[in-house]
């Protein structure tokens, strides 16, 4: 007899696959992005089902939310640039020349083969493989946090996390570099209702974000999720033009970007000594230090994600904008 949960699983899985396929095959780009967002949310749901609420939260907030916003903003920009705001540009301004059907089919066939191969590999993997959980369970008491995921992120594999923040930093530096001097498409017009909503929502978002951050120590949540929620606030501010970045804000923005990375790295480095190595927080200060790091990282993440959404560095624009200024 079919387990209802299993039916749910299968249906969910099928819809995820269907949505993935649909989002890639639908012609209209806006629809594509919307389908993708739904896909992302369903994936998050699946991950909740797999007892990974932190991941689900991150996926929903960052992987789907922020990514979706970025995609939409880019689509908007593209339509503006190509002067076809109301039309549906199929493939962008300068589409790639079409590829012979045979090549496409070969691609698809290869990918199908790969998928089959990977599936075979997956099916051949041990059903209950060895994991880290024993090690984590052993180490948790000395980690300074109660939630294992946070422990892994900020203690056991803090180096990874630091580098992840570095990736974000690199991204924002790269984006600023890429888009320097780029004239901006006018922000999508947000209705009055939205602006009102934004004003109302902002405090709530801050609360939620802080809660996630704080709660990350014991329960699902943490710096990334919190940061994402706070970034959503930034997005709203930017979208409603409640906040317009000014050239003068660049300095503070830079500091905000590097805050998380800098503090994280400094702490990691400075705890070394007295027999301890880098990232080895003294047990008595572990929780404090981790919270400090998390807080700073959250701020950086939030600002960075918002900046990534906004794109170009806020500078006084010159016309043309192609050349260095």
């Amino acid at each position, binding site marked *: 007899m079919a387990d209802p949960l299993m039916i749910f699983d299968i249906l969910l899985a099928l819809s995820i696959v269907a949505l993935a396929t649909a989002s890639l095959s639908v012609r209209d780009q806006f629809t594509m992005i919307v389908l993708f967002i739904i896909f992302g949310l369903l994936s998050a749901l699946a991950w909740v089902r797999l007892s990974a609420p932190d991941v689900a939260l991150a996926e929903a907030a960052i992987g789907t939310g922020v990514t979706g916003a970025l995609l939409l903003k880019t689509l908007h920009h593209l339509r503006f640039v190509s002067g076809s705001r109301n039309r549906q540009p199929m493939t962008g301004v300068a589409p*790639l020349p079409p*590829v012979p059907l045979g*090549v496409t089919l*070969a*691609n698809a066939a*290869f*990918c199908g*083969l790969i998928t089959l*191969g990977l599936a075979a590999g997956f099916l051949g993997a041990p059903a209950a493989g060895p994991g880290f959980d024993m090690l984590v369970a052993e180490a948790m008491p000395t980690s300074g946090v109660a939630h294992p995921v946070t422990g892994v992120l900020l203690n056991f594999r803090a180096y990874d996390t630091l580098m992840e923040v570095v990736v974000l930093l690199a991204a924002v530096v790269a984006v600023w570099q890429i888009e320097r001097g780029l004239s901006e498409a006018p922000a999508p017009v947000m209705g009055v209702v939205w602006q009102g909503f934004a004003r109302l929502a902002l405090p709530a978002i801050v609360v939620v974000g802080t809660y996630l951050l704080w709660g990350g120590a014991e329960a699902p949540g943490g710096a990334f999720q919190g940061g994402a929620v706070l970034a959503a606030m930034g997005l709203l501010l930017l979208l409603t033009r409640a906040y317009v970045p000014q050239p003068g804000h660049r300095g503070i923005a830079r500091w905000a970007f590097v805050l998380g990375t800098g503090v994280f790295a400094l702490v990691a480095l400075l705890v070394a000594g007295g027999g301890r190595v880098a990232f080895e927080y003294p047990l008595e200060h572990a929780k404090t230090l981790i919270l400090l790091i998390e807080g700073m990282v959250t701020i950086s993440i939030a600002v960075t994600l918002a900046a990534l959404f906004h794109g170009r560095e806020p500078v006084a624009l010159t016309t043309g904008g192609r050349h260095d200024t």
Partner: protein
Amino acid sequence: MSLAPFVTALALPLLLALALIWPQARSLVWRMMPFAPLPALALALLGDLPMHAQADWMILGLQFGLDEISRLFVIFTGLLWCAAGASARHWMRHDARATSFGVMFLMAQTGNLGLLLALDAASFYAFFAPMSFASYGLVLHSRTPQAQGAARLYIGFVVLGELALFAGLALAVAQAGSFHVADLRATALSDPAVALMMIGLCVKLGIMPLHFWLPPAHGAAPVPASAVLSGAMIKAGLFGMITLLPLGGVTYADHGTVMMAAGMVTIFAALLLGVQQTSPKAVLGYSSVSQMGILALGLGAGLMVPQAWVAILPVLVFLAAHHALAKGALFLGTGAFAAQTGPAAKLAVTLALLLPAFVLAGLPASSGALGKEALKTAFNAGSPVWLPWLTVALSLSGVATTLLMARYVAMIWLHPPGAPAKVTQEAVLLPFLALVGASLALPLVWVAVAGTLAAPISQAAPGALWPVALGVAMAAGVAIHAHAQRIGPAVFLAQITAPGRALALRADSILAAKRRAARRLAHAMPKAIGETAMRWRLGQTAIAGLIALTLLLEAGGSLRGEAAMPPAAQPGAAHPPGHMLPPYFEP
């Protein structure tokens, strides 16, 4: 054993010759001409060996018989006479002196077959002489001054030869005290006797310096007559020596030396003389002389080293048969060539002529080459002093023959032999082709026919190509030289380089075009490939393709690996040394 078969064999040609005198019978006789040797052939092919019959009443006590050697002689001689007869029937149909030719032809045939069947010295001589004298008529047949000169020369030598042979036989018989050839062979004959017989027989054989008559005579005689003269009758000399001289029993070192030296001289001198001839049949005649030189080598070796004779004899017989068929084919082919009128037909005949020509020259695996190789092998049994020279001489004789054949082929085009006006072309062609076939098939047939005597042949190496190739090359060189001399060297140079120059020019332009095209292609190809790859985004395909390929390869590899190596294998053996655990990771 009854005498009847022998009598039949000899009587048929004789009676036919006599019948020709009766005009009403002539047409029938001519029709019978090819079949005249058939009784003799039948006797040789079907009779049980050894045969012997006696007719004391005839001459000085006639004795007939066949042994293994003479049987083989009868077979190829008979075949040749058949073919020549077939050819003569058409060749002579409209000839004014056909009757006289027919008589002489049949008389000679009788003599030839008779001496092969004779077992006593007297009858041998008795058949030998008519054959020689009847041939005079054949040589003289055309009555041209040239023929008359040739006939004069011929008859002179014949007389000389007959005298010597006669004297020799006389002495021999006296010493042996018997007419029977077996007795002669068993007696240690005195030197003069042997010498005289040798001279007499060598005249027939055309060994230098007794060869002068041969080429003119063969050139002058009508084609069918030349064929038998060259193919069959001169072998009578060989047969005579084999049958009369005490070879294999007594050592005649001086005779042998002379014979061998004469043979060697003959081989090459005949070449030198032959290449100067313009008449194709004279060239063939010299070629016969040259070939007889080879036989002389064998005879000489037999005289010098009797114990080698056993090995040499079968080879000599084979060589005789080989020469008879090939040379007969060439002579008949000359006639066939002359009978053709269209250039295409002439060309075709020429091509057919090349076959016996190459056989004669000793193309590997042909009877010529096999015979020579077998002779070389046989010489191994003889004097080691002579051996290298003989071997070289034999090899070079291939070159010489090739050159002569080349000369011959050139001459039939440059100086085409004459042919009777209304000869039936196909009719003269058929005997020729039959002989060509026989000549080609000889090595195969020989085994069946000769029985044990074929052993040296079937064991012989196929022979080397180089003498023939060298000969062809030299002939080509000579031809080119002659051509150059004729038209002047400068013109010739221009002429031969003209196609080369044209070719070079064309090749240059083609090459240049090709090179340009190649360069264009070399420039265009990578560009096209690169651009296509870019446009079709093959790089993306490569990503997927490579993953799939790697998956397949590794999966296949691990499957094979598992199949080949049980999991229980030691880890050290399963993994090459590179996969040993680094010390750092060791617990």
